[in-house]
């Protein structure tokens, strides 16, 4: 239905979320944000939701959540005043919505300020040195420093994952990463000292998970053949040797 599509576009275009709608209502009715007439705003808000429903417009669940919050505040406002006065700590129930609204507006204002700056690529441009200018100034790659973002790395890996064969699935559990960290740590020690006493790797460690991770790391190191584990006959001391 083309008509439905049109409505769909409209609502999304106007109110990105419940906060947006609230700001609109408060502005439209010219009410003081520090003293929101909660009954009025709640009614208008619910009217709007009802209208969206009637028009068969899809809207996110966030809108309903906000409706519930507003209704809740409204009901708390209806409580007799003296009840809340007895409790010194009782605050205006409306703060539940005023605080986030103010924060939201502050951030909106900040976004406007950002948008008003001289933005690179929109208002101002930097020079793109022509290729010929730099061509004969080729650099030695071994001394280059690198510019790379984590996002690029993960993005590359995503591509790889798509072609990964079944027997090469990657384990993303946190434990797996902990073991990798531990392996790196043990290899660092072994690179420096050549060997290490088995129990030293556990010294001072009391958290069970870490003991297990350390043990699993040693097993993996032995499995891939990075270390040799040997026990001295006389002393019974177990040592790891870097191969």
């Amino acid at each position, binding site marked *: 239905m083309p008509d439905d599509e049109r409505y769909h576009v*409209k609502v999304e275009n106007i109110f990105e979320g419940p906060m947006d709608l609230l700001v609109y209502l408060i*502005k439209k009715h010219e009410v003081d944000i520090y003293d929101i007439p909660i009954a009025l705003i709640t009614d208008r808000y619910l009217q709007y939701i009802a209208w969206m429903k009637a028009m068969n417009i899809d809207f*996110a669940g966030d809108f309903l959540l906000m409706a519930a919050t507003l209704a809740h505040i409204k009901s708390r406002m209806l409580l007799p005043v003296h009840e809340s006065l007895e409790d010194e700590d009782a605050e205006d129930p409306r703060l539940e919505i005023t605080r986030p609204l103010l924060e939201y507006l502050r*951030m909106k204002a900040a976004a406007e300020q950002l948008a008003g*700056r001289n933005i690179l690529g929109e208002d101002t441009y930097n*020079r793109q040195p022509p290729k010929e200018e730099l061509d004969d100034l080729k650099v030695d790659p071994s001394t280059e420093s690198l510019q790379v973002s984590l996002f690029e790395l993960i993005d590359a890996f995503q591509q790889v994952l798509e072609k990964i064969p079944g027997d090469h699935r990657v384990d993303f559990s946190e434990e797996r990463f902990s073991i990798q960290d531990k392996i790196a740590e043990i290899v660092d020690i072994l690179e420096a000292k050549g060997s290490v006493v088995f129990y030293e790797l556990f010294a001072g460690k009391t958290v069970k998970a870490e003991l297990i991770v350390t043990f699993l790391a040693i097993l993996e190191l032995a499995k891939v053949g990075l270390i040799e584990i040997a026990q001295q006959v006389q002393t019974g001391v177990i040592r790891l040797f870097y191969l």
Partner: protein
Amino acid sequence: MRDDLKHIIESLLFVSESPLSVRQINSVLDLREPAVIRECLQELAEEYEARKGGFYLSEVAGGFQIRSRPEYREWIRQLLQAGPSRLSRAALETLAIVAYKQPVIRSDIEHIRGVDCGGVLRMLLERKIIRVLGRKEIPGRPLIYGTTRRFLELFDLKDLKDLPTPQEIKSLSGDAGEGQERAETPAVSDESEEDAGAEEGQKNT
């Protein structure tokens, strides 16, 4: 000699695609008194300003960069055939929250905006305007976000301290209402559907 130095610095600024810091410039010049570099930059800035030519010296992202004067943006856009490419309102709001609240996690951002921000965060990550700073040590170990150097470059900011202080909101009739024009459209009248549709269409051109 001093003029030479200034012009060498100018040539370096000219070929560099990102802002150059005084330290970077001195890694090339190797002066015992790097303060001279700052003086030269100052002179260049004044010279460009007095001349009111096609470019100016911008102090941005911890360094200096020669940039075209904003006054000429319309001509340049025509030359580069660049469409009106702007960050959406949703993207700007999300970015503002990351910038002011960093280090910040997704749920905090969504709490403030009241809507899902996953797609916007991804786009900002892809464009390298924000980055992952690490993980927060709470259940679920969510990713922590912050802004990048590219963010400073894009928005012509010297550093994060250079971010304007967001104004306190007094009432909605004033500043807070900006950017709100679209919400002004009467909610129930039928013509507004068309308007909104048209606007949407424009955005995608």
